[in-house]
């Protein structure tokens, strides 16, 4: 991101102890090279540059943004024009000007409009939904085949059979209804458009799929391209493969894949036969006891996790990992981190993964279960590699991250920071869990999975980008927290933040905000201090 000729700026007087964590991808320069004046200039230049880049990025990846993101942005703009002085907030937040948003929005709308007109289509929601429902009974279309909007009259399934999700459609209708209350001129354009959001949403899903299709058709997958595309969320039918690639588990070269996977899966199972029986030995029995206590209570509300076969699968993965990583061993919370991998890798084998929560895993051939288990093990290992200091003695990684988060929040939302401090809230009291479980206790699993699309696409997603996500996440509830006037009220809210109805769109917003923070802090740590 920073060019070689342009010095990257680093705050020299850290109030946060430790290294400049924000810039792992932006090699910090010696402070000797810097003096006051260039700092100011470079800050402006790099800031501008980053904004341009973000702008460019937003345009390039425009089709990957879900419609609701835009609607959300429009709503924010709308609210702010009503609220007066808060006016700068969303544009500042997203790093794009209102004008840009306007342009992009109307361009997309125009595009869609012209397409639908050229096809002389009058599609309403029910007309669209019918083929989707019908597609459940049809099994002729392969998953992953994208459809352009103009194809509607000829082609039955709008979304791949296995991934039709009626809930999403309902949500979308609700969003649509909500938007009707808005007065924004932009939302009015959307409203007056003959095509409802539903179709636009599907269109965007399809565009997303179209983006992934060519990537996966390559015999040697371009990981950078995959990362770029995955950052904004991966379509379900590509997710398992994409995650394995992004973990460095699945080789990008098609001819190497089968051999590598076979070897890795065999390797895992050889660990199991070699070590798993030692769980009852005195050396390891405490580890196993802890795992055995934690597994049944992992996801108490999801029936699939009550199945013994699933619980044993998790126990093996965790025990093998723990004894192969004695520096940390098993720490409560690591069990949660296996869940997204398990769910995503399992979904590859399920006809309609909407019902994954109730899926009877014993109906799956043993060979497939073994594949899911081995793949989950390796993916989890990859994830933990980057954050192992979260779990070693005294959990230094977490302590450091919590302090850094505190510093970040102090800079980006001073009133909130002061409020928390005035009420004697310690960040460790709530953010420990955010770091230890990567926000999995604060978010529904579907949101975690979407969030991990981004984490896996980032260079140090789980260790560093997560910090910016945590900061955005906290600030998201700033108003609610400021409303709570005492220690009890604040802490109880922080322990139970209202995210149960969150969708992947909320995560998309969160990632966009976190990206903005990352850009600001990576190149201009002083940016918010003066």
């Amino acid at each position, binding site marked *: 991101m920073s060019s070689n000729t342009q010095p990257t700026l680093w705050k020299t007087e850290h109030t946060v102890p430790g290294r400049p964590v924000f810039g792992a991808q932006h090699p910090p320069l010696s402070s000797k090279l810097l003096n006051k004046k260039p700092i100011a200039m470079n800050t402006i230049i790099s800031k501008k540059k980053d904004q341009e880049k973000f702008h460019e990025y937003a345009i390039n990846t425009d089709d990957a943004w879900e419609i609701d993101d835009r609607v959300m942005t429009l709503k924010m703009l709308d609210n702010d024009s009503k609220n007066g002085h808060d006016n700068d907030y969303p544009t500042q937040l997203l790093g794009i000007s209102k004008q840009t948003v306007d342009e992009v929005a109307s361009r997309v709308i125009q595009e869609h409009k012209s397409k639908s007109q050229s096809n002389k289509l009058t599609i309403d929601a029910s007309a669209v939904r019918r083929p989707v429902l019908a597609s459940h009974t049809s099994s002729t279309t392969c998953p992953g085949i994208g459809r352009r909007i103009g194809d509607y009259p000829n082609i039955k399934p709008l979304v791949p059979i296995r991934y039709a999700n009626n809930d999403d459609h309902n949500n979308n209708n609700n969003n649509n209804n909500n938007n009707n209350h808005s007065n924004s001129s932009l939302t009015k354009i959307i409203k007056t458009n003959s095509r409802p959001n539903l179709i636009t949403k599907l269109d965007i899903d399809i565009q997303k799929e179209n983006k992934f299709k060519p990537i996966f058709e390559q015999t040697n997958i371009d990981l950078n391209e995959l990362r770029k595309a995955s950052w904004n969320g991966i379509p379900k039918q590509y997710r398992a493969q994409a995650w394995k690639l992004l973990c460095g588990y699945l080789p990008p070269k098609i001819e190497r894949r089968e051999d590598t996977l076979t070897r890795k899966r065999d390797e895992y199972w050889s660990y199991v036969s070699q070590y798993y029986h030692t769980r009852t030995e005195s050396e390891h029995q405490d580890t196993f006891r802890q795992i055995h206590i934690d597994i049944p209570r992992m996801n108490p509300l999801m029936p699939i996790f009550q199945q013994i076969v699933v619980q044993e699968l998790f126990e093996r993965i965790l025990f093998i990992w723990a004894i192969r990583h004695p520096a940390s061993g098993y720490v409560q919370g690591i069990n949660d981190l296996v869940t997204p991998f398990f769910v995503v890798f399992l979904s590859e084998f399920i006809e309609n993964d909407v019902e994954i929560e109730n899926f009877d895993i014993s109906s799956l051939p043993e060979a497939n279960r073994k594949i899911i288990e081995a793949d989950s093990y390796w993916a989890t290992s990859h994830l933990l590699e980057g954050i192992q200091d979260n779990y070693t003695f005294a959990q230094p990684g977490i302590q450091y991250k919590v302090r850094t988060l505190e510093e970040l929040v102090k800079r980006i939302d001073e009133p909130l920071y002061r409020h928390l401090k005035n009420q004697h809230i310690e960040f460790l009291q709530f953010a420990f869990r955010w770091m230890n479980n990567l926000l999995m206790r604060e978010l529904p699993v579907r949101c975690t999975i979407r969030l991990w699309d981004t984490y896996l696409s980032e260079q140090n997603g789980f260790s560093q980008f997560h910090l910016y996500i945590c900061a955005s996440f906290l600030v998201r509830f700033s108003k609610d927290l400021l409303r709570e006037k005492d220690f009890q009220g604040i802490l*109880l809210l922080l322990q139970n933040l209202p995210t149960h109805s969150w969708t992947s769109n909320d995560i998309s917003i969160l990632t966009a905000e976190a990206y903005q923070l990352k850009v600001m802090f990576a190149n201009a740590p002083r940016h918010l201090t003066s």
Partner: protein
Amino acid sequence: MTREDEYDYLFKVVLIGDSGVGKSNLLSRFTRNEFNLESKSTIGVEFATRSIQVDKKTIKAQIWDTAGQERYRAITSAYYRGAVGALLVYDISKHNTYENVERWLKELRDHADSNIVISLVGNKSDLRHLRSVPSDEAKSFSEKNGVSFIETSALDSTNVEQAFHTILTEIYRIVSQRQIQDHIGPISPNPPIHLPPTDPDFKSRQNPTCCS
């Protein structure tokens, strides 16, 4: 979420003990009258409050539920600061959780205030057929160590109220007596949070809050 803003005393109490002994369920039973057979493991600390009446005084208990796994102790011990009471919980059906009680006592001695009021709690008393820790044994152990003892069941609610009431009342007695001795008037209801100073000459003036 109901919050009682008026109280005469605010006491910080910690729940400690091995993983899986039922600390979180004791807390949810006492503060919300809820029980979950499979509640998620506690990560770090969790927090809840409830107020009770003792001698016509309102005592607000601020209860901190800690994670049981050993790895967390380096961090959770920070939460002992300012605690005036500790419920040390074990599972009557799992003898090893009782064996570890000594280690937990040491943990408190090392990290908590020396005047902290401790109560030993044998939870899961409903699991009669699985009992592996005799009541008498735990009782004599507690006497030897100068702590109170009670058996509870968060599942069927047995003695849960009692356990919290006992420890809070005991703290209240100590605090109100000390106040008389120190000629300090009753603490005014409302902020800052008042925790009875265990060392009135030093801590009270330096740090009048409990949640540091």
